[in-house]
């Protein structure tokens, strides 16, 4: 257990230090949502209606932006070899790395949501609905994204490949994330239905992601 805790601590520490890139995601998220009202115009009703979708899109792209470094950094400096050889099962190590990535890059996105909701004319209830769906949905983005990140390790410049592989997998998360937020704001659907499906998507990815990533790392090393 200490091994996994240490791995999480190390990854968060690296992400938060200079050049770590944890803040790049938040900055990107901020830029997209701040520019949106300028592009759409001062129609407050329209902004409110599009708000949850804009926030979700921003969060999705922001999490993609930082994901491709999840394994490549460790692969380039040889750390990945030692992690594969170690006594900790690779599946657990992958899960720990994804968790660390979510804590360092995903949680700040959720924390920034209330401030950005203000920009999009969302009231308190709507903003908290979006934040709640992001809290439940972003782990699914990280854990499915991890599969693509693991596949991209062996290919140089796998960044684009990551987007192509991961985006289709994240479409359901996007659909139900936005649907749940909209349901909470305008109805007529109940909030519970899409929200439960979103939870289910996250739980499935928590289970499948580490195994798929570990398998592709084992196969891809050379």
């Amino acid at each position, binding site marked *: 257990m200490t*091994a996994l805790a240490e791995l999480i601590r190390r990854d968060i520490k690296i992400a938060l230090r200079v050049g770590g890139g944890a803040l790049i995601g938040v900055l990107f998220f901020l830029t997209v949502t701040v520019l949106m009202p300028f592009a759409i115009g001062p129609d407050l009703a329209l902004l409110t209606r599009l708000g949850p979708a804009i926030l979700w899109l921003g969060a999705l792209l922001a999490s993609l932006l930082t994901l491709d470094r999840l394994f490549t950094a460790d692969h380039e400096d040889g750390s990945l070899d030692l992690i594969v*050889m170690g006594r*900790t099962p690779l599946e657990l190590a992958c899960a720990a790395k994804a968790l660390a990535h979510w804590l360092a890059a995903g949680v700040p996105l959720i924390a920034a949501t209330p401030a950005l909701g203000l920009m999009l004319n969302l009231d308190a209830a709507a903003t908290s609905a979006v934040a709640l769906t992001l809290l439940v949905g972003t782990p699914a983005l990280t854990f499915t994204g991890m599969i693509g990140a693991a596949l991209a390790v062996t290919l140089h410049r796998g960044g684009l490949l990551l987007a192509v592989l991961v985006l289709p997998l994240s479409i359901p998360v996007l659909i139900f994330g936005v649907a749940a937020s909209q349901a909470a704001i305008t109805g007529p659907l109940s909030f519970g239905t899409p929200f439960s499906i979103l939870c289910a998507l996250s739980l499935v990815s928590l289970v499948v992601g580490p195994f798929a990533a570990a398998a592709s790392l084992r196969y891809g090393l050379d």
Partner: protein
Amino acid sequence: MRLSGRQIDCIRGGRSVFAGLDFEAFSGEVLAVVGPNGSGKTSLLRLIAGLLVPAGGTVDLEGGEAELTLPEQSHYLGHRDALKPALSVHENLAFWRDFLGGAAGDLSQSLAAVGLGHATYLPAAYLSAGQRRRLSIARLLVVRRPVWLLDEPTSALDTAGQDLFAGVMREHLAGGGIIIAATHTPLGIDARELRMGGAA
């Protein structure tokens, strides 16, 4: 302990690197893998470390811990140093000690043993190539593993560093360890040679 390989075939990128290779090494012994560039020295080490899958043949460790696989009982010191520039020397080493697990030695003692005692809190980004190598060697000391797989261990080390490393290896052998080292330069200790053929 006896580490042996039988009839190992290695194919990389559709090309046979070596075929039908046999080797063995016993406790307290160094097996120096020598041969020209491209003869498969690194591939052999990575095969033993479990990082490459052999196309044929087997690698066995007899007399090790029954519940652990060979890679879990091995240290691998590759070309790349597995150091994070954002972390300090101390943090880098402490991470590997805690992550690799098993019997752990004293951290500051290991750093002192490789001559990095003065740089404990320096970020690894500021280390020279030789110092990075020394820090990797400290990893071998801080976590105990019976089998050491070393790929060009003395590259980037100065003469004093090479002497120091020879001492480190001697101590490991005296404790019953096995060392397999791919090398072009003499290691400074007695070693059995495994000569790899020219590029096939």
